[in-house]
C-alpha cells in the first residue's frame, strides 16, 4: 500500500521535473545578476576566484549562516550523544582492549598527518586565488584527524581547546562583519585594502575569513567524528 502511494507521488514529482527542466535550457547563457559579479568582481573585491568573492563578499551572509548550521550540527550531536564522564571512562577502557592499529598504518599516518594539515592550510589560505577555500581546506584537515583516529584509537583531541578554537574563529567571522558595520555602515563590508589581484596578500577580508572558516570547519568536523566515536576526554 505504502509502496503504491509512494510511487504515485514520485510519478507526479517526476512529471513536474520533466516539465520544469524542459523550460530551463541547458548550456545556454542565461546570466542575469551574476554578470555584475563577473564584470566587477575583481575590481570590487580583489579576489581572482569569482566563486570565492561571491561566497564571502556578495553573499557572505549565506556563508555565515552555513557555518552556523555546521556549528549547530556539531553542538546538537554533542548534546544528543552526551555521556556522563564515568560511563565514558568505562567505554573507553573496553574499546581500547579490542583494537590496535597495524604498524604500517601508525607509521604512515604519523608521516602523512603533518602533510595533510599543511595541504589543508594551503587550500584555505589560497582560497581567493585557486579553486578551494575554507570548507574544502577544513574538510581536508578533518580527514587528517580522521586518519589519526584510525591509527591511534587511544588518543583523542583535547575537546576544550577545539571548542575554544571553534568559538574564537566564529567570533572572528561575526566580529569582522561588525567591524564592517562600524567602518562603512554595512554588515560584512570588505573594508580592508584590496591589494593587487592575483597575489597572496590581496582582496581584503576574504583570506582572513577563509582562515577562520577553515579552522572552524576543520575542528567542527573533527569534533563530530570524535563525538560519534564517543571517546573525547
Amino acid at each position: 500500500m505504502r509502496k503504491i502511494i509512494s510511487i504515485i507521488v514520485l510519478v507526479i514529482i517526476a512529471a513536474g521535473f520533466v516539465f520544469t527542466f524542459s523550460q530551463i535550457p541547458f548550456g545556454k547563457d542565461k546570466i542575469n545578476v551574476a554578470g555584475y559579479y563577473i564584470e566587477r568582481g575583481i575590481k570590487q573585491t580583489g579576489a581572482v576566484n569569482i566563486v570565492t568573492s561571491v561566497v564571502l563578499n556578495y553573499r557572505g551572509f549565506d556563508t555565515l549562516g552555513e557555518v552556523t548550521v555546521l556549528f549547530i550540527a556539531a553542538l546538537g550531536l554533542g548534546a544528543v550523544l552526551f555521556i556522563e564522564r564515568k560511563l565514558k571512562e568505562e567505554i573507553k577502557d573496553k574499546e581500547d582492549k579490542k583494537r590496535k592499529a597495524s604498524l604500517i598504518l601508525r607509521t604512515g599516518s604519523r608521516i602523512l598527518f603533518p602533510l595533510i594539515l599543511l595541504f589543508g592550510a594551503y587550500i584555505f589560505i589560497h582560497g581567493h586565488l585557486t579553486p578551494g577555500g575554507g570548507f574544502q581546506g577544513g574538510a581536508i584537515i578533518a580527514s587528517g584527524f580522521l586518519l589519526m583516529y584510525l591509527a591511534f584509537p587511544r588518543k583523542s583531541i583535547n575537546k576544550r581547546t577545539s571548542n575554544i578554537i571553534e568559538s574564537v574563529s566564529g567570533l572572528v567571522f561575526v566580529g569582522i562583519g561588525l567591524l564592517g558595520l562600524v567602518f562603512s555602515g554595512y554588515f560584512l563590508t570588505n573594508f580592508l585594502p584590496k591589494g593587487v589581484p592575483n597575489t597572496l596578500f590581496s582582496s581584503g577580508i576574504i583570506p582572513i575569513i577563509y582562515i577562520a572558516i577553515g579552522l572552524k570547519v576543520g575542528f567542527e568536523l573533527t569534533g563530530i567524528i570524535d563525538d560519534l566515536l564517543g571517546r573525547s576526554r
Partner: protein
Amino acid sequence: MSVIYNSMYYIASGGLILIGLYIVLVKTNLIKIVIGLNFIDTGINILLICIGYIRGKTAPIFSDPGIKSTSVVDPVPQALVLTAIVIGVAVLALALSIVIKVYEHNKTLNVTKIKGLKW
C-alpha cells in the same frame, strides 16, 4: 544526439532526487533512509550546477590573464552549492547521531518495529 546531451545532466539530477525520495518513502531501515536523504541533496546540487553551466565557457577563476569576463560560467550556483553541501553534511551528521540514539533505545533500525516512528 544533442537532445541526449542537453538532457543527460537533468536526467542525472532528477533521477538521483527520485531514487532518494523512493528510498526515504519505501525503505524501512533508518540508515538507508539517511542515505536516501544524502542522494536527494546530491541530486539538487547537480541540478543547481547544471543551471549555471554555459556551454564552451570555463570556470569563473581569472588566475590566467587570458580569460575574458565573457567566457566564464555563472558563479552564483556554485556558491549556492558550496553552501548546500556543507548544510547537507551537517544535517546528515545530526541525523546519524539521532539514529544511534534511537538504536540504543530500541535495539533495531527497522522503522516498522519502532512504535514512535510509524507513519
